């Protein structure tokens, strides 16, 4: 199905970069969570979620991302988002994700920020 979310993970040192592609619903959110926890277990200190190729994240997907954020913060890790559409950005602000996670316009800015410790 073309609409289900594909996720690519790239590890650079202690930073894991997630590239999503497609609709993030409960399944997409859970898949991101699974891979995020695997990266943290594997020693990643910071996660950067690049949502450039995602146009819709539903509220269930966001609620799962909030759980991931909490788990990352519990372990003193860092979670940053980048390349959000205006609508996704707005929704992240409504649900408060933007209060607890950093959001950057581009992946480069996100990477620079997490490198220096957000």
């Amino acid at each position, binding site marked *: 199905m073309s609409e289900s979310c594909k996720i690519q993970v790239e590890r650079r040192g202690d930073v894991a970069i997630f590239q999503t592609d497609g609709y993030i619903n409960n399944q997409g959110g859970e898949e991101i969570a699974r891979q995020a926890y695997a990266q943290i277990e594997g020693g990643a200190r910071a996660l950067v979620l690049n949502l450039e190729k995602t146009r819709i994240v539903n509220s269930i997907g966001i609620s799962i991302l909030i759980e991931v954020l909490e788990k990352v913060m519990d372990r003193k890790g860092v979670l940053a988002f980048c390349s959000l559409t205006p609508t996704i950005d707005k*929704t992240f602000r409504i649900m408060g994700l933007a209060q607890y996670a950093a959001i950057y316009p581009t992946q480069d800015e996100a990477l620079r920020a997490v490198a220096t410790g957000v």
Partner: protein
Amino acid sequence: MGQRESARPGLERTGNREVSLTIPVASDMEIVATAQVAAMGEYIDMPHDKIDEVKLALVEACINAFEHAHTRDDRVHLTFRVGRDDDEGPDFLEVEVFDQGTGFDHEIVEVPTPEKTFAGKKKRGWGLQIIRSLMDSVAITSGEWGTRILMRKYK
């Protein structure tokens, strides 16, 4: 305005600007439905960021019907309308999401806040709030017959 009207004479003539779509209660059908609302938004040249907002509001209303309504006909009935309050006003895109489900009392649904969401165990409960935030107007009617959400966004 004259120019656009001549580009769609049939529509102006009949005053008929309504498309209805019935989808099954099935995963990802909400995304199939967004294609239709996007086409209607493009039809009135609504900016893409606003179309995205309507799409998400539609997705939230559909997954509520899928998840909570237990519809008798296993379907969700959508109606998309484009219109204008008066000759001078901006075009709007209206979306109606109707399910023949159990209904609910939206006045007693707890309003979520980021603080409660982050402090507590319950992360869900944001669908209606997102719909209200993204659309210009939202009306919910619900009863034993089911639920109807009527929402509108201006271009």
